């Protein structure tokens, strides 16, 4: 199933291939443009590997079902777009609170509300990180090609299994629907969660602040709740220390391990004075514009977070001393801007595009040139 070799597929299908190769055995979803192709591909592929596919009554049921399946021990995923992603927010917080590994693909479309159903946008950047109420952390990945739809879906499963967190793949209609070459490699690194063999192990947090996960049906008498709970699962909503210890650990397990989670691509950054930071579909013309600027003698550099959250903060701070201007082309009026301005402590030259179209090399190059003058 999904043998090593070359394929010519669209991004959504590549994500489904990645999920199958990562060992996903359960998918629940609800149709929505532009993510339906992932759901359809999973409906076709999962039974062939002995996995289970369910089309649920809505997106809330979909994410509920994959959390339930994850507690039965199966790697589980759902895929959606803006409106469905909004509906899933409460249970993303539930997965974070109960430390349930799940993967959610949000193929972004232009919002707000129904917006432009089949047009790309990048307006869910903040929602992917802060969409559910309360303090929690997730990991958010940002593919910019068909190949990365595959690669980062595998990575999403690995990270969710290691850190027991919901991992979100923040794609967009452009990347989800584009057709490109996909190379499925011979060797793929797959990580499986550590299953607890006794109850004690479910409370034994390793150096990375994660414990082994219990599995329903194994006789551990697990007590899983989205309420504030002690390490043994007992609900305790009245003791301040219980809430503090739990929430701090949920946040710290990402914060303290961020150097092993962060991943980014960079080009010409060693002497760059103008740094173009971009993600997802927008990063493709951004890179093209930087290459063109270099040909014209402009000291431009390019940085693309493949992991959007946690952001490659330390690397950006390193570059900050040399860089005179930071340009952020993206398909959103807010997108990643607040995060970059927080890290760089200055105004970022934002180049937002909100028509449901990807910015062009020309537009970005013009911005780079005017910044260089």
């Amino acid at each position: 199933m999904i043998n090593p070799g070359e394929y010519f597929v669209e991004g959504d299908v590549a994500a489904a291939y990645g999920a199958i190769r990562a060992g996903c055995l359960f998918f629940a979803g609800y149709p929505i443009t532009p993510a339906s192709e992932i759901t359809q591909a999973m409906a076709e592929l999962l039974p062939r590997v002995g996995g289970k596919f369910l089309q649920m009554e809505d997106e809330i049921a979909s994410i509920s079902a994959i959390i339930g399946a994850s507690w039965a021990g199966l790697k589980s995923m759902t895929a959606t777009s803006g409106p469905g992603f909004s509906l899933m927010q409460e249970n993303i917080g539930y997965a974070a609170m109960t430390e349930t590994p799940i993967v959610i693909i949000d193929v972004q479309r232009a919002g707000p509300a129904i917006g432009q159903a089949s047009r790309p946008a990048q307006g869910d950047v903040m929602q992917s990180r802060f969409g559910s109420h309360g303090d929690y952390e997730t990991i958010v990945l940002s593919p910019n090609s068909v190949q990365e739809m595959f690669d980062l879906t595998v990575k999403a499963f690995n990270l969710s299994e290691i850190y027991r967190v919901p991992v979100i793949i923040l794609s967009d209609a452009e990347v989800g629907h584009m057709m490109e070459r996909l190379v499925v490699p011979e060797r793929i690194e797959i990580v499986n969660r550590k299953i607890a063999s006794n109850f004690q192990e479910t409370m034994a947090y390793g150096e990375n602040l994660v414990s082994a996960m219990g599995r329903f049906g194994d006789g551990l008498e697990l007590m899983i709740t989205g309420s504030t709970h002690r390490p043994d699962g007992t609900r305790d909503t009245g003791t301040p220390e219980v809430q503090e210890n739990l929430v701090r650990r949920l946040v710290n397990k990402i914060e303290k391990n961020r150097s092993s989670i962060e991943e980014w691509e960079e080009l010409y950054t060693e002497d760059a004075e103008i740094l173009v930071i971009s993600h997802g579909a927008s990063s493709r013309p951004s890179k093209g514009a930087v290459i063109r600027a270099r040909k014209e003698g402009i000291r431009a550099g390019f940085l693309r977070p493949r992991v959007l959250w946690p952001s490659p903060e330390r690397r950006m701070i390193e570059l900050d001393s040399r860089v005179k201007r930071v340009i952020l082309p993206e398909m959103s009026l807010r997108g990643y801007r607040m995060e970059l301005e927080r890290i760089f402590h200055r105004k970022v030259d934002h180049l937002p595009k909100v028509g449901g179209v990807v910015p062009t090399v020309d537009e970005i190059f013009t911005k780079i040139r005017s910044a260089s003058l």
Partner: protein
Amino acid sequence: MITARYIKENYVRRLPSAFCPGCGDGQILNAIIRAIDHLKIDRKDIAAVSGIGCSAWIPSPYLRVDSLHTTHGRPIAFATGLKVANPRLKVIVVSGDGDATGIGGNHLLHAARSNVGITVIMVNNGLYAMTGGQVAPTTPHEAKTTTTPYGNPAFSLDVSRVVAAAGASYVARWTTWHMNQLIRSIEKAIMKKGFSFIEVLSQCPTYEGRMLNMDHIEMLEWFRKNFREDAEGIYKIGEFVDIEKPELTEELEKMIERVRR
């Protein structure tokens, strides 16, 4: 003989419970435990799933099996994923009337329609008790609650009838007065291959009782007098559906086998 001590030692995580004095939730916990004990099912093969509300606390924290205490209205959707992922598990959802038919009504309909082999025990006290006695989809017309201080202008839902119409394999309604029937019914529901649903009318002396000026004994008396197998509408108790038909997880397994062949 099933003694209180036997139940406590084998099936209950901790006591005393947090339920109000006179609440029916303790009786329903008792009924679920007795049914499991009669059936002699290994506790590790049972998973309990609940949402938000007083009745959600019946399995979590009290019932000593793997338990998943989920978000408001969603336990049936969580339970569907759990059951499909591991069909060996007997999955029991304990939900309230607000949880199962207000915020989560959509999931109830579709679980019945798809005939997924889980059991839903819906504790119906006719209002939202945990949050302070507000009006629910099951509150009778003109009844006073904390959010219908002048009487309920809307009308109540006959949940069992709706679930039966949606395609469940087993549907029954009892009250906390009818403990023996309830226990037998839970046994049948757990062993039923398809989707099984039991509605249990239960007394809430704290909010419902206060509005009706009744204590829990008077409320049970009222159940005894008014809920009968020959009564009409919501007052009719008994088994309404008890059929065998293809079940979702089995159909899925068959399909997978067919595809892989």
